């Protein structure tokens, strides 16, 4: 199963919405040309210590993020994990068709809903959909194209296959 940082980065990659770990915290400038800001990072794995919004912190802690001061704890299973995957803005905001997300770009690029579904599967689960899966997802998009696509990617991120296989 993916660890906290891996999971965050996998979600960011699958949805095309990288993390934004801006660094307003200034440290003392000792080298000329150094701005004093920590570098901006897009992946949780790039960070020396955990940073980010409180939503992100809650999400990461549910999946066993360590503070790098103590050894990483094995992720303790708790009902918080699926709740986070279902509810956290870390997932929910990223599947929305906005801010150049995967869903938005696919909807803009393809008129064929089947193609959108194929690409969603490929970017989230790294495989093509089975015919039944494709049919189900296309039906969902037929109901409401934008919401359908968002719901499909949300569901793919909530599959245990994503947690283990990404």
């Amino acid at each position: 199963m993916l660890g906290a940082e891996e999971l965050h980065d996998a979600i960011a990659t699958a949805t095309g919405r990288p993390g934004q770990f801006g660094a307003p915290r200034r440290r003392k400038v000792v080298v000329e040309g150094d701005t004093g800001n920590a570098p901006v990072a897009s992946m949780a794995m790039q960070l020396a210590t955990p940073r980010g919004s409180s939503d992100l912190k809650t999400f990461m802690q549910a999946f066993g993020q360590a503070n790098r001061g103590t050894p990483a704890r094995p992720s303790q299973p708790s009902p918080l994990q699926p709740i986070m995957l279902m509810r956290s803005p870390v997932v929910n905001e990223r599947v929305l068709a906005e801010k150049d997300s995967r869903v938005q770009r696919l909807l803009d690029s393809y008129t064929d809903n089947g193609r959108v579904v194929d690409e969603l599967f490929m970017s989230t689960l790294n495989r093509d959909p089975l015919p039944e899966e494709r049919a189900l997802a296309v039906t969902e998009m037929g109901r409401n194209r934008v919401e359908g696509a968002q719901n499909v990617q949300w569901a793919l991120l909530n599959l245990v296959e994503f947690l283990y296989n990404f």
Partner: protein
Amino acid sequence: MQEMIRVQDAFRTRRELLRYGGYGLLGAAIGGAWPGRVRAAETKTRPRGTARNVVFYEISGAISHVESFDFKDNPATPKDFEVRKLPTGIHFPVNFFPRLTPVMDRVAIMRSFVSHEEVHLRGQYYVQAGRPLNVAFAKEIPSLGSVVASELEGQRREKDTFPTYVSFNLESNQVGALSTGFLPPEFSVFDLNPAEAVKGMSLDQKAVELIEERWRVLEGLREIGRSRLSGFGRQIDAFESFSRTAKRLLTDPRWPAAFKIGDEDRKRYGNTAAGLSCLLARNVLREDGGTRYVHICQHGWDHHRRIWDRTADDNHYALISAFDPALASLIEDLAATPSKATAGKSLLDETLVVFMSEFGRTPGPLNHILGRDHHKHVFPAMFAGAGVKGGTVLGASDSEGRRCVETGWNHKSQPRIENVVATIFSALGIDWAKEVHSLPSGRTYAYVDKLGANGFIPTDDITGIYG
């Protein structure tokens, strides 16, 4: 008589409610290894069974006992303390505990506790696990709340969706939230950051509908994948049933209702981590959705320096002003809420509230940086609800609050956290002499550990608090 029960059978026959799929899920600490047998001890305990629920309020980092629940006039007593003798006979700085003062007649104090530990990490572990930390087999030791959850699993009703063991801010403790050890993960703690939970768990109708809509897609995909994924082991099934439990919880209207809080309550409890934790604890218990054990952790009491300096961060005044309204409101509200389980009783009548620190603080004059350090030799624990006789004071410390002069029960040795654990089990009607044999390491897990640092210790519950 020895009673042998196979643990596997006991758990397997229990209903599927909070089953996240058994042990070994998601790389739980102990893979596949199950303790063999539970043996009830030869001398049976007599559990009181007066409580349905327990709220354990951990004053984490340790409150200065000589300026709170074991007040001693000392050279460092702040000038602005207004110490009065309460009707129950105790001296109490009433102006800094304005809300708790009238509630103290519901509270029993035992002032003779001693701790095994004198550093936070080990002390906080001790509070959560009910036994000193032994890193060699800490992996297989569950937290007290998880043991309680496993014992109460058989009492869960069909309508129960809330986790049995809920905690607030435990994860930010020095030891974090302990795992379920040798117990299956279904008994794990559900730890919430109260401010985040108010934001994230109070789903409105629209949010519930969205989850229902998306859930349909998710279940559809799972159904299709079922045959393809079969044979990949129980981890797959386990996470899915885990996820179903979560969905059931989120779409139970009682759960979001518990996290919707009004401005008036927020003001009364205090808009602090402690206040919100107590408020949510009340709400979760009031909804009666299956939560039976609540652990609240209030941090910051580690006043080594400038304890009475109002300009210092997290000074004693600031923490008391968060602690006082939070805990007092919780006790008041539990007392004012009728029980759903037993007609004519209040929720407080069936909830044991325990509040204590992991140890005390050095009494007498302040140290050279105007603070108080760790002091394990004597410190108090407080109890309310579940039949506890308010105003009871057991045990005593010397005139300075440095050493114990009266243990307050029928043993020469001072009571320890192990005895609080026994008291909690007893109140919940659980036989605390039980032992679990053949842990993965081959050791035996006793519900109440009888091995102190210097030999055996009494494992009795504390009955004096009931008058």
